[in-house]
């Protein structure tokens, strides 16, 4: 399952030769073999210096393989029961620092979701013009986890048990982003 040489040369070309490209192709193979959860990391966006120089390379590396993965999942009908999330733990400062860098920004940033259980084309929430504050529909990680779980059919209001101790599956104080769910 982990041997990408089993894929056609054309497919390996489509995904590119980067590590991230290989991992996207491997993710497709894993999902095709019913692996229930796949995480691909694409690291190194922490650009306190020359943000735009580095991101233009990172995003260039990200775009093509990710587009190939989503396209292939769609072509194979796998998006009907696969939820795809692109997310990070925080964003970058709207203000550019003196070294053309962007620092950590936890007040407002975007994530993307698609596939199983998600309403196509929905845009939820908004920020002010400069992206410094959320002006519409504030949500946090608690809402996002409820949304992910409910999109794939898990009752996030339930509990799970570890050594006899009950833990909530999702934050009881939060709920899903209902208008994002299909």
């Amino acid at each position, binding site marked *: 399952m982990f041997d990408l040489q089993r894929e056609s040369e054309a497919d390996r070309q489509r995904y590119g030769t980067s590590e991230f490209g290989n991992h996207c192709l491997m993710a497709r193979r894993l999902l095709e073999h019913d692996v229930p959860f796949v995480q691909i990391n694409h690291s190194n966006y922490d650009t306190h210096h020359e943000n735009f120089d580095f991101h*233009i390379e990172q995003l260039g590396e990200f775009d093509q393989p990710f587009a190939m993965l989503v396209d292939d999942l769609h072509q194979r009908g796998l998006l009907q029961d696969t939820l795809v999330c692109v997310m990070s733990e925080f964003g970058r400062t709207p203000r550019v*620092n003196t070294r053309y860098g962007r620092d950590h920004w936890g007040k407002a940033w975007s994530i993307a979701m698609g596939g199983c259980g998600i309403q196509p084309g929905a845009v939820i929430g908004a920020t002010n013009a400069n992206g410094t504050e959320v002006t519409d529909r504030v949500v946090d990680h608690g809402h996002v986890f409820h949304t992910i779980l409910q999109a794939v059919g898990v009752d996030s209001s339930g509990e799970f048990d570890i050594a006899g101790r009950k833990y909530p599956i999702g934050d009881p104080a939060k709920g899903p982003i209902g208008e994002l769910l299909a």
Partner: protein
Amino acid sequence: MTETPPAEASPAIAPEQTHVLLEQALPSPLTACYWEPKNRFILVGTEEYGIRRFHLETKESVPMIGPHDSWVRAIGSSPDGEVTYTGGYDGRLVWWPTAAENPEPIRVIPDAHQGWIRALAVSPDGSRIATCGNDKMVRLWDSQSGEMLKCFQGHQWHVYNVIFSPAGDALIACDLHGFVKVWDPSPNAASAAAEAAPAAPADPPVAPADPAAVAAAPAEPAPAEPAAPPPPPVPGLLRELPQLEALFKYDTGFRADIGGARCIAFSADGSRLAIGGVTNVTNAFAGVGDAAIVLVNMAENKVAVQMSPKEKVQGTAWGVARHPAGFWIGLAAGGGGGWLYFWKDDQAEEFFKLKLKSDGRGMCVSPDGTRVAVAHADKNLRIYGLFAAPPAS
């Protein structure tokens, strides 16, 4: 060619006496600056997606904003200063009437490059404009008609800077990995856009061996595998300089390239080419490295010296200029703050340095050589006098 000393009426150049003459706040952080040849204006790149024309006498700043949709860091002009050229991160190349009361663009080439234009240069006779950018291309434009004359294709990485030789017979470009290529800007030069790459020249004919001589010769070891044929010539490429390894690093921690020519300048006689950037990088994403300017001996095709701050200060060299009095000026900025450095010919260590109030992002020297302007990240354009300040009254 000898370097022209400052005009007689100018104050005596004394770099060790450099001091702030003017501090002018503008509406946004600055990205670049260019001193107009007639000494009327400084054209300043700003984060407003355009430039501002700063009038040296009136101190008025006139926005030249509109056709660009991103930052402008490439600024130049015709030799008489009447037409200004700007290149933006939007890939647009724009012609402006420099001194117009309300400058409106004369010409806009929307897709001069695919992606960022990182730098532009104007030929000494003003007839051609060279641009380079993230599409890995170096392009040559007719400054009168706006027609693209040449497209030089051969860099494998984003092209960070470009400059004409003082004689105008060579166009030098340096990319992210520190590869420096010398292109032919002459009208009859080949280029990727003008014509298809010519076929590789055939190997020179080899004279058939004399059978008698072969028979008499002692047995020799089996011949080695024939060498691979040389790659086909790159259209328009005159030669390559050694890779400036000091100005490039692949940061294995962040899996990212860092380097390139952040600034470039020639000595007036064309014998030395200075290319500045960052070296000794230990953390690319935090910009932890040292400013450095590599001086290339053009005749010998080798690095003459690496000019660096004597006391290591984190930063990148964002500006370099050759002063007519025969020394080099460098602008460094980064974690260690902003600095101006002054080096003598082929000397690795500076003879003077000046701490600046803020990080600088671009630098230019006045036509008479008496002043240096720095575009600062704190929104200020500062002009520094390279001479003794008059005694305080």
